[in-house]
């Protein structure tokens, strides 16, 4: 029959079609790799991405470039990666904002699904939050904090780096759990908030350990509680929330993800290289200095982790009153 194509040719054609994909996976990395940071330069996401990019450049033998695509609670940059080809050349520095909080906060303005639109590759760094108070505030423990909050009209002033930030949500959860009033005082970033606490304009703030670590070490402010499950090795004198009788554990995280459907060998290689790099003594020292811990998760474990985070934060986001829609 004319026009009928022999099956063997058809099979050959489909395998030909599939070839570029397979070839690409084999020859990966194919040129420079781009890590999109969904925040402006200078923040902790940017810093950890640049640190990782530097390490991966040496390990993979291709240049790994950081590209900042800030905007809309880290969703703009994440969307770019969700839409990119899953060839392992475009990755995103996923984090608690872009993949756990913003999908609920921004609701239907976010087109991606934080779990299904991505291939989650490896956890890079996690760090707890620390609650710090002004030195002259008279607050020495979480119990003091609760007592003071109950005695003040509108509750205690509690500062964070911004409305809808993970630290804001931590405050919401704490006050919800303990039935206390609070006045959330959001700032444009952690720096100005810390300044307000040091100056005594606000008695306390919830801050990520990396940005607060130096101030705690230098005695500019007093740390009263750490949100990790165990005491932090770099700050053994600061008790956890749990030790003080408050059931609260929270860590912010910075990780490596790519578009959905990345080839398994590429994911495995990236996961291995990342985990090896963050486990090197040089990286460990830097992370300890920052108050962070190196991530160590398989791609599957990390994917499950992201799903759990989304579920965990969604009700808190709704309760915080910080809604975008």
């Amino acid at each position: 029959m004319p026009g009928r194509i022999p099956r063997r040719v058809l099979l050959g054609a489909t395998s030909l079609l599939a070839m570029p994909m397979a070839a690409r996976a084999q020859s990966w990395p194919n040129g420079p790799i781009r890590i999109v940071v969904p925040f402006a330069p200078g923040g902790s996401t940017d810093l950890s991405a640049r640190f990782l990019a530097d390490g991966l450049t040496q390990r993979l033998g291709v240049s790994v470039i950081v590209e900042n695509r800030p905007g809309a609670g880290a969703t703009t940059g994440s969307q770019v990666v969700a839409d990119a080809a899953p060839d392992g050349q475009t990755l995103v520095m996923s984090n608690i904002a872009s993949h756990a909080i913003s999908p609920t906060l921004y609701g239907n303005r976010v087109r991606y699904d934080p779990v299904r639109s991505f291939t989650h590759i490896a956890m890079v760094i996690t760090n707890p939050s620390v609650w710090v108070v002004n030195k002259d505030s008279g607050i020495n423990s979480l119990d003091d904090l609760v007592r003071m909050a109950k005695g003040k009209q509108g509750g205690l002033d509690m500062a964070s780096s911004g409305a809808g930030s993970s630290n804001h949500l931590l405050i919401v959860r704490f006050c919800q759990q303990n039935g206390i009033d609070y006045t959330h005082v959001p700032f444009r970033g952690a720096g100005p908030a810390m300044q307000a606490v040091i100056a005594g304009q606000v008695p306390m703030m919830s801050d990520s350990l990396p940005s607060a670590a130096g101030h705690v070490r230098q005695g500019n402010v007093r740390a009263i509680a750490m949100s990790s499950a165990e005491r932090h090795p770099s700050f053994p004198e600061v008790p956890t929330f749990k030790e003080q009788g408050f059931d609260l554990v929270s860590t912010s995280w910075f990780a490596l993800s790519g578009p959905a459907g990345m080839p398994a060998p590429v994911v495995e290689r990236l996961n291995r290289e990342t985990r090896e790099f963050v486990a090197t003594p040089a990286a460990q020292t830097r992370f300890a200095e920052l108050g962070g811990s190196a991530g160590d998760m398989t791609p599957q474990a990390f994917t499950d982790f992201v799903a759990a985070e989304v579920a965990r934060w969604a009700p808190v986001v709704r309760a915080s009153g910080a809604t975008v829609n």
Partner: protein
Amino acid sequence: MELLLTNLGHGMSVALSFENLLFCFIGCLIGTAIGVLPGIGPVATISLLLPITFGQPATTAIIMLAGIYYGAQYGGSTTAILLNLPGEVSSVVTTLEGYKMARRGRAGAALTIAAVGSFFAGSVATIFVAASGPLLTSVALSFGPADYFSLMLLGLIISAVLAQGSVVKAIAMVVLGVSLGLVGTDVQTGQQRFTFGIPELSDGIGFVTIAMGMFGIAEIILNLERPESRSVLTTKVESLWLTREEAMRAIPSVLRGTALGSVLGILPGGGAALSAFGSYMMERRLSKYKHEFGTGAIEGVAGPESANNAASQTSFIPLLTLGIPGNAVMALMVGALIIQGIQPGPRMVEAQPDLFWGLIASMWVGNLMLLIINLPMIGMWVKLLQVPYKFMYPAILTFCAIGVYSINNNVFDVYQMLAFGIFGYLCSKLKMEPAPLLIGFVLGPMMEEHLRRAMLLSRGDVMVFFERPISATLLGIGFIALLTMLLPNIRKKKDSALAE
């Protein structure tokens, strides 16, 4: 005093080591280059170079990054003067008289006084930082949200004097600028305001986008419209150096600008931006040549340029003594230091004397380098103006587009810039000036933020603005400024009424 000299001497020995000198030079050179290229700012450059600093000693790294920062301040005035293209908030003021001077054929003089004034201000401010840095920390800390609000309000009031024509139109532009500043995510609630569902607007409109559009692009359209004016620059390039008269006029302005900038720079967030046009306002009030303002008065370049550079030096004070970054560039430097395992803060002076005093000494060395880099180049820059405009404007457009794109890596910003260009052209046809709009745009959101924070902390009690001494004083000055601004107008009206 003796201790100060010993410390500075120690700092010099650090800053003058071969490696530090080299990287200081590299930083200044890169800074000048990116300052000259419109739109490409120090934030993008420093973050790009951050990985290089991982392998460097901390002192060398921070000396290089600081060089980029103040180098960019120097370079930014070049495009502001030559092409009416402000790349930074502070250069907006430089365009007012600087570009007018360039059009009169005094581009060389404007660039020279900008460089010399900046050098002088930088040197004085460096000593100021060294001598009283730790002491001044308490000043920065004593500024609460209510005080910041009153300072910003004062800034907005005095920005109306930037107007070269009608005060009413200037106030309208300030208000429009404040409204444009409202676009984006509300800091207090996280709500989106005036974004019309466009995700690119969720973080607000970029300063560079508006500045490039309203000044640069609009100027190009205007120039293309008037074929005769295009040759003005090329025919009248006079001596590059200051005349005796110009120098005598500039000296007091440089001194005043330096003093104002050194003080305002200490305040994190907005201090440096306020210093340049605060100085412009001061010059316009105090100069004997008031009538020349608006046509290229050298005082209007000398004062603000000095103020701006002094402020960029003293803005290191909150960073070095508190560990609190005053702006995005400072935040990057904190990042660079933290990666090196150094936390900037009160203990840094004792714990890292090499770094602290080395950086301060390198600021002076860097300022000297910038003077040496920039002075010989002035002749070259001025020659650039002789390039036929038909070659110049496509190049300017290209650089503007690249610069604006590179900030967020987003094409939408380029479209925004073009839209603001057309808007700027219309404004200029209506004799509405862009400078007050930009000041409103910068100060408005900060003012709102501090107003709402002050009200939140006082649980809605307005008295907080009048009870705090700093805030009350600033409000008082603002009130007087408003009166002195309105009185001449009222008097003028009376005079004209009497004449009739």
